């Protein structure tokens, strides 16, 4: 079993991180559980006493639980920023329902004859509650705590999306990097935690009445101790905080490169791409790992830092076309090359921004651009032949796909079919190889690393030089796949470190080296 072997060696190699993530995970789970019990238990008791509030409170807790976890975490960011606090609040809200509901039903289900006996014997309402109702409801309440714990262990993996750490860092890193060992190194401990806590709590739940008296003291103590795990792995603080995606954290042309080549020592949290730009805008984090043409760059007033040591491979976009199609329609190549060199990083960012934030259609954006650059022509009559244009499933590719379609219609008599949203690189590439599409826009870096799977030492030799990478990739595609790279469109959609424009100005940080120096001051 080579797979199992390598998971193990991965876990051993990364044992520091694994331990840290596991402790953080346990800490997150139990801090939030502690507060859920602190609030949920009295609330459950309260609605069992004042029944008229029960449907309101239970209904509210129910609604909280139906909010998708990612969305709930998203709501937290504007209110509480990123990091442990919003994660704990979200987990707390999730754990609330099972605890309130079970406390309530547990008390309501106590045999009415027993309650009547207690009252008939002269117990006050508080004696009834503490001597009779709560003790008898404890198995049900514990079942609620058990459910809440298992839910929390699961949802806590998502905490990695908003910089709170936990085993989600490995899980989402593993997914993003297609690294099964990393994924399992996060997923297996998470599953084990759920199973172990479930098992322990099921044992507690079935203790007999006598032992409960003891467990009433021990149980809260254990929760508090487990909660404190979150405090242990805190790193030393630096002035600036970086938020990187799980994928970026695990890549040599990402965080690992920053550490090796720039010797960047920075406090980092792992966040999801979905919240990263906004969190930077809201000053929850200072440096992020983004894509240089992302429309959010403009939307949130961010600037990219110059990669002065060239650790991020160039991701210049260019159309990739089947050789046989170029031979069949000789007029095609020059038409597709009309875009070459016309779209710079900032222009592409602007176009993406118009699509993502101003909600303009890719067609309109493409047409406006062509008109502004004197490239637009009315469609010609359609004759023989047809070109199928593919695009990956993100904004930039939709826009480029539309531009190529308009150019072909305007300058040739060929018919055009757009096959948009073909998912990621793998799907697009397979479609073109299997003759399901004729062309699609690709990036040099992707071609180099993902499709050609170029060895690390070769990549090193190319040393991020944009022309040499382009030539290498173009050659490789021609020889291996009979596909041709046309001229680059102009922009480089590479990884980039980004900061708020304002902060970059104040600190005079323009390059990654500036950033490193600033941190070492």
């Amino acid at each position, binding site marked *: 079993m080579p797979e199992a072997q390598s998971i193990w060696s991965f876990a051993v190699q990364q044992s520091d991180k694994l331990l840290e993530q596991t402790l953080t995970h346990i800490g997150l789970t139990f801090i939030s559980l502690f507060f859920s019990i602190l609030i949920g238990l009295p609330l459950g008791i309260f609605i069992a006493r004042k029944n008229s509030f029960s449907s309101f409170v239970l209904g509210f807790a129910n609604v909280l639980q139906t909010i998708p976890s990612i969305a709930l975490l998203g709501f937290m960011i504007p209110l509480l920023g990123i990091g442990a606090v919003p994660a704990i609040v979200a987990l707390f809200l999730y754990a609330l329902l099972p605890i309130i509901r079970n406390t309530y039903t547990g008390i309501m289900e106590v*045999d009415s*004859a*027993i309650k*009547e*006996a*207690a*009252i*008939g*014997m*002269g*117990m*006050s309402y508080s*004696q009834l509650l503490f001597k*009779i109702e709560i*003790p*008898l409801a404890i198995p049900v309440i514990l079942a609620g705590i058990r459910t809440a714990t298992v839910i929390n262990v699961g949802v806590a993996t998502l905490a990695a999306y908003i910089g709170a750490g936990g085993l989600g860092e490995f899980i989402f890193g593993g997914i993003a990097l297609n690294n099964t060992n990393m994924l399992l190194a996060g997923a297996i401990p998470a599953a084990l935690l759920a199973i172990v806590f479930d098992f322990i709590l099921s044992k507690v739940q079935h203790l*007999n*009445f006598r032992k*409960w008296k003891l467990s009433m003291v021990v149980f809260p103590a254990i929760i508090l101790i487990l909660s404190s795990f979150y405090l242990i792995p805190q790193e030393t603080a630096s002035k600036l905080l970086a938020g990187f995606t799980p994928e970026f954290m695990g890549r040599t042309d990402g965080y690992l490169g920053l550490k090796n080549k720039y010797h960047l020592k920075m406090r980092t949290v792992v966040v999801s791409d979905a919240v990263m730009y906004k969190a930077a805008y809201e000053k929850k984090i200072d440096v992020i790992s983004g894509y240089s043409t992302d429309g959010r760059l403009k939307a949130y007033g961010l600037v990219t830092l110059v990669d002065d040591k060239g650790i991020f491979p160039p991701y210049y976009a260019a159309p990739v076309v089947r050789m046989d199609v170029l031979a069949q329609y000789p007029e095609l190549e020059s038409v597709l090359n009309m875009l070459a060199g016309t779209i710079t990083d900032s222009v592409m960012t602007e176009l993406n921004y118009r699509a993502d934030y101003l909600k303009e259609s890719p067609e309109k954006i493409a047409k406006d651009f062509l008109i502004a650059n004197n490239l637009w022509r009315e469609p010609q009559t359609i004759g023989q032949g047809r070109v199928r244009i593919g695009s990956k499933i993100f904004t930039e590719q939709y826009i480029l796909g539309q531009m190529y379609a308009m150019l072909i219609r305007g300058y040739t008599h060929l018919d055009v079919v757009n096959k948009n949203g073909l998912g990621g690189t793998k799907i697009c590439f397979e479609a073109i190889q299997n003759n399901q599409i004729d062309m699609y826009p690709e990036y040099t870096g992707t071609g180099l690393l993902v499709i050609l799977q170029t060895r690390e030492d070769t990549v090193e030799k190319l040393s991020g030089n944009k022309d040499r990478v382009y030539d290498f990739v173009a050659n490789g595609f021609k020889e291996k796949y009979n596909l041709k790279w046309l001229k680059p469109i102009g922009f480089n959609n590479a990884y980039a470190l980004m900061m708020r424009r304002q902060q970059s100005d104040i600190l005079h940080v323009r390059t990654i080296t500036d950033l490193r120096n600033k941190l070492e001051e």
Partner: protein
Amino acid sequence: MVDVEHVTQRFGNTVAVDDISFTVAEGENLVLLGTSGCGKTTTLKMINKLITPTVGCVKVNGKDIAGQPAIQLRRGIGYVLQHNSLFLHYTVAENIATIPGLLKWSKDDIDNRVTELLVKLHLDPEKYRNSYPAQLSGGQQQRVNIARALAAQPPLLLMDEPFGALDTVTRTAIRKEFKELDEFKKKTIIMVTHDVQEAFELGDRICLMDKGKIVQIGTVRDLLNKPANDFVRSFLDDQRLQLTFQTIKLAELWPFVESSGQEGAMLKIRLEDTLWMAMQLLDGAEEKNAMLALTDQGVVKNVTWGILMQAYNIYKQK
């Protein structure tokens, strides 16, 4: 000790108890008897303030309970519920100690009292003290239930079908023990049942209820011999003969009994015993020619079944 004066209890449209009045003297056993749903439990609960009467007043020790704090009142009244209501998370000892605990008795006093009650109710203290209710049989649970109500030595005891959940054999057995217990003898007891036999065995007086109203209150004999109406008569019909035999003492038949000339296996019985007991004794005897030896001031009469019946017939005509 307890005065119920023109009490009515309504739940919405149902009138559970309809203008009832009765008095229970100190040391008396009053049995509330009646069909299901006639308002027995409701009446009982109005005495310890679990329910407040819609109309009317209840006095305990001559004082209207409406003006008394419920908690103090209840701690002074033993209460046995109709349904099994032991605290499942308390041991037998803890269950029994409930009210003494609420009254802050010392630990030693509580322990002694628990042991005393367990012994009196025929539960081995060593064995059952620390058991949980779930580990006891139904009959044992019911003993604990009764012990719990007796624990703080309340002068007044309310019991709602205390033997209701038990099978007939166990029930008869516990009832016998119960009658003999000194704990009960000096207490004022109001007990609910729908079992006529039980009512006659345990009650000094019987309060027969129907549809929320009291149909008749009186001794066993009153109900048998002077029924207030057809309801009383038909309520007792099924067990009339047995009940009658139970109310007649052998002393009353003495003048009409003639001694049998024959000899046989002699069984001893006292003149205070009832005709019913005499007949059960003869029934249960193993010997074929069993006879009872009745003795009054040195005179002995040997009696058979036939002789007893003959004497009863003469007694009835008189």
